[in-house]
């Protein structure tokens, strides 16, 4: 899957390296391949030590919202079935 992991940028140094956090594990990676500026707090996709894309938080929140709706509608349905 060209193994790539969402991670959060913790800090950026002057050599275009970033310290990133993956669920609590931090390591140094390269920003050499980033096509757009990033800053601490941004989420990026990490592949073999390189950030290769910024994760669109907007899009991510959008899908979370969609799934949240699915869940809510399911709960509503369940409550109807077993009142």
């Amino acid at each position, binding site marked *: 899957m060209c193994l790539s992991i969402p991670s959060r940028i913790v800090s950026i140094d002057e050599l275009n390296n970033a310290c990133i956090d993956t669920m609590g594990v931090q390591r140094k*990676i390269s920003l050499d391949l980033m096509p757009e500026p990033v800053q601490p707090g941004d989420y990026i996709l990490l592949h073999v030590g390189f950030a290769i894309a910024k994760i669109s938080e907007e899009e991510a929140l959008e899908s979370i919202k969609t799934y949240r709706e699915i869940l809510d509608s399911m709960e509503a349905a369940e409550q109807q079935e077993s009142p």
Partner: protein
Amino acid sequence: MSIQQLKEHLRHPSVISSLADDINKLGRTIDQPLRIMEICGGHTHAIVKNGLDTLVTQVVRFVHGPGCPVCVLPQSRIDQALYLARENGTILVCLGDMMRVPGSEGETLQHCRAQGADVRFVYSPLETLDIARKNPGSSVVFFAIGFETTTPTTAALVQHTIDAKIPNIKFHINHVLVPPAIDALLHGNRQRPDAFIAPGHVSVITGWKPYELLSQKHHVPIAVAGFEPIDILEAIRELLICHIKKIDITLNSYHRVVSYKGNHRAQELVDRYFDIRSHFNWRGLGSIPASALQFREEYSHLDAETSIPHIPAQDTHPTCQCGAILMGQSHPWECPLFGNACTPAHPVGSCMVSNEGACAAYYRYRGVSL
């Protein structure tokens, strides 16, 4: 948003069930199960491991695609890696996956290291710089493999090598291109799949534009998808709708990281150092024109391949069903070698090589029994 939250949502059991229900309901309207090829082994892995196919058995039949860069690498290229590793004074550096892949004699780089060769794996290609600096008397060869996702990281290493004037790093380039392979698969395949799931992280770099071109040329729906269970089910649902509505377009279901044009910076970097190879031999698919990269003329002094004697390509094992599996004509467990002569420890065909190969995924996660 935290990553934690995002992940939890993308693996939520109820959402998974709900999506599978949707798909199964939609599927009542079609006669034959939809034949979807997931091109990328990462998707194969996620589907088999998470049992997603078993949730939609009636509606979808998965055709497992070329797999991953490790699987499609012909044995003769691994023989070249072994040749380089055994050279005195050479340190061969590669990414972890490569260590376990056997060449034509069944030997891996791990074996080669056990016999005394200096072979090291790195997590990031850039670690090679440090190895070269610490071993000025050695010749360091970076054995580079990967789809479009990984190629830019090799290009970044090339750039650092040149900028820092490090004299003792060379490269063995095995970077392949996904769209030409799909194109080849579609040409002259009578049982071609009805729809495709396009690789998510390859598309982060290339954008989804190349798949749009394929949709148009071959009249087939394609969805770019992420790798979480819900990402994949979402893509399946979209493709099913397209199929029902007979719309042959490319859809991007992986909005959060994939754009139409991809990562231009990565593309430029790759372009600076590499151009298209006229042909490249894909394990399981054979020779495909313009399907891989090579150093541009002006960087050929960095190419370790030129110093290697010709190593002939191996014939495929006559009984191996890889070809048929990749064409969607056969299932892994239908191959007589599956789990017998052919296991992940001793793979016969490409599909058994890495975790992402279809045969390997079934062997590891499903056996013949689950």
